[in-house]
């Protein structure tokens, strides 16, 4: 049977559509309409390697899929979609696991023992007990490195009489230090308390933390003192080590053995050795380590950005300068402090009325620095700012595009000004574009509600992050030397 041209083309197109539909429905389990199952949440310190659609297992049996992974306060908030027929008891714990050295990550749930069942929207506790492979590898690598270092440095330190002497000195130093520390803490207790009282007003969390900190400092110094005394008396391992020649010899040979092991490890002998010499495994470990350190730095990082910029105003042919410091405790949150050198200055109004004469109004323009102090939040590509703008209340919004290279900002402040030419709120629209890392150019329109002093402007500026600053200062100092 011969088909007509129409039939042949039609058949091919139809078959294509069918195959495509089939493929679409097969990949990643497509769902029509609403998702089935219920959702649970879990906050992890790190979920490196976990993806949306990763599996969720109980005792190795798949019970659902990861739906969304989002960042929340420096932690990973994972949304778990659990099949409706699976009932989980309260107290269930979650942990990120891997199926093998190279295997994909999944979430393992350790069922709870409580009576009640988890329901949609509940949160899971994250299990810390189960060491997963990554962490194990991390620990191994840490331990191996430690052993190596300790053995090497101890050998050096203990190998000679000089070394022994210096160890004694160290102990003496510790003792001295701890004594000093405790004296300092005692002497300054009053000051500390005062400072705390001050800070108390600002921060309630610090209020509880600081005394605790002080106490632990105190305790540490006491402990250190005790240890130092013990060591001197030859009590405890370290003390014996220093006092007893026999033990010292033993230790020396033990260290020898340890260093042999580490050498073996380095050469790739034995199981752990293989693990380290295998390129892939090594990469895996480094990425795992990186993930860990990223997670840590993300929490710890307190970014500082320092910058200055100048705006040339087309209408008045004058320059407006800014010096700014941005403190950024978190990726999505910052404080912006800016000094503004505004050619227009600060305009104040004084009304004097003498007797029954009509009041005399005087305007006083002072060339004065103005202050911006703003609090900013980032929501993905959108940023909002609120605070002091040129000495008055103001608010602004930023739209970030192209990896933050392009930024559109709108600002509004000065809602009731004394300045007669500035009787409408001050509105400003800016577009800025960053070249490289440090340099940016900008242009925009300033004060468009106030027809007498509105102006277009163009400008450029520099900005440095703390790493850059360190580098700049460092190289500057080198040159100075």
């Amino acid at each position: 049977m011969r088909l007509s041209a129409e039939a042949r083309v039609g058949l091919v197109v139809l078959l294509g559509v069918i195959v495509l539909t089939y493929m679409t429905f097969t990949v990643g389990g497509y769902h029509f309409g609403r998702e089935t199952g219920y959702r649970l949440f879990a906050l992890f310190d790190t979920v490196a390697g976990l993806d949306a659609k990763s599996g969720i297992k109980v005792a190795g049996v798949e019970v659902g899929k990861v739906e969304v992974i989002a960042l929340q306060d420096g932690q990973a908030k994972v949304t778990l979609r659990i099949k409706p027929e699976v009932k989980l008891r309260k107290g269930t714990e979650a942990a990120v696991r891997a199926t093998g050295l190279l295997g994909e990550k999944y979430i393992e749930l350790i069922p709870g023992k409580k009576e009640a069942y988890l329901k949609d929207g509940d949160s899971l506790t994250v299990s810390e007990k189960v060491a997963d492979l990554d962490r194990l590898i991390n620990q191994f690598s840490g331990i191996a490195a430690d052993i190596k270092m300790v053995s090497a440095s101890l050998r050096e330190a203990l190998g000679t009489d000089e070394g022994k002497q210096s160890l004694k000195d160290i102990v003496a130093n510790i003792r001295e230090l701890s004594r000093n520390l405790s004296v300092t803490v005692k002497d300054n207790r009053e000051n500390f308390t005062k400072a705390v009282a001050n800070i108390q007003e600002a921060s309630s969390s610090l209020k509880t933390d600081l005394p605790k900190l002080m106490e632990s400092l105190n305790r540490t110094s006491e402990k250190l003192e005790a240890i130092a005394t013990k060591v001197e008396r030859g009590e405890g391992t370290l003390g014996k080590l220093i006092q007893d020649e026999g033990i010292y010899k033993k230790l020396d040979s033990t260290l020898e053995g340890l260093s042999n092991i580490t050498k073996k490890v380095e050469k790739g002998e034995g199981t752990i050795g293989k693990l380290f010499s295998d390129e892939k495994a090594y990469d895996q470990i480094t990425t795992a380590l990186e993930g860990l350190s990223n997670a840590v730095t993300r929490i710890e990082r307190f970014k500082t950005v320092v910058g200055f910029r100048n705006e040339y105003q087309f209408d008045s042919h004058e320059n407006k300068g800014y010096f700014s410091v941005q403190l950024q405790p978190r990726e999505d949150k910052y404080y912006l402090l800016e000094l503004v050198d505004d050619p227009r200055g600060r305009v104040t109004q004084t009304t004097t009325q003498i007797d029954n004469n009509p009041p005399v109004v005087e305007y006083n323009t002072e060339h004065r620095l103005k202050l911006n102090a703003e609090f900013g939040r980032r929501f993905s590509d959108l940023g909002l700012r609120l605070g002091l703008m040129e000495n008055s209340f103001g608010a602004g919004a930023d739209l970030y595009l192209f990896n933050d290279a392009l930024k559109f900002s709108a600002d509004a402040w000065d809602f009731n000004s004394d300045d007669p030419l500035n009787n409408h709120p001050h509105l400003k629209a800016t577009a800025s574009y960053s070249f490289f890392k440090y340099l940016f150019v900008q242009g925009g329109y300033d004060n468009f509600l106030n027809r007498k002093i509105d102006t277009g402007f163009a400008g450029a500026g520099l900005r440095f992050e703390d790493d850059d600053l360190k580098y700049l200062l460092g190289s500057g100092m080198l040159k100075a030397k």
Partner: protein
Amino acid sequence: MKWLELLGVRTTKFIEEVGQVFLLFLQTIKWSLRPPLGFRNILKQMEEVGVRSIPVVLITAVSTGMVLALQSHTGFKRFNAESLVGTVVALSMTRELGPVLTALIVAGRAGAAMAAELGTMRVTEQIDALSTMAANPIKYLIVPRLLAGMLMLPILTIFSDAIGIAGGYFVAVQVLNVNPVVYLRRTTDFLEYDDIYGGLLKAFVFGIIIATVSCYKGFNTEGGAEGVGKATTGAVVLSSMLILISDYFLTAILF
């Protein structure tokens, strides 16, 4: 310095040609928006570009999928991750090899045929004859070919994807003894809609490139039978080059 000069001339000519191809594409779009569209002609071209290319596209796809499975298996075996072969085959086919190989084959088959046919029509004054009969040659000759290319390339790519994945599955499961269930899971779990549809979007663009370049070369044929030959090779070379170049940019943009 002679060769440098030659390089300059060649580059300029290439850029110029790409510009002209693009202008022709715009004109074709313009004409394709003016009804009536010769449905019969479109159908005929769809058969030429699509239906008749199926066997060679399928053979290429299945062998590519099989080779891909065989090769990647050698690597993954060393990590006991044989099932990842499924992922590699599925991703490579849908994102890259499906669309690109299909396009290269269609460029060699249907693109060459288009250039030769239009080239012959040009040198035997048939295109002039069309004009004298108030039938715009772009509308009558290029629009159906462009539409056929745009529609059929994605469809051929769907087949290519499916058959390539099937070929990979066959080799992995039947020859290399990979666990079929795990293989399929690895295929479907890692494959996203974006991979499939991104690949199809590529194919769509390649379809435009093949049709426009081939028609351009055919339309601008000069010098009798020899000219037709040159136009045909030129069409295959230029469209293959543009396919590979644009593939890079499309990949960068889409994925």
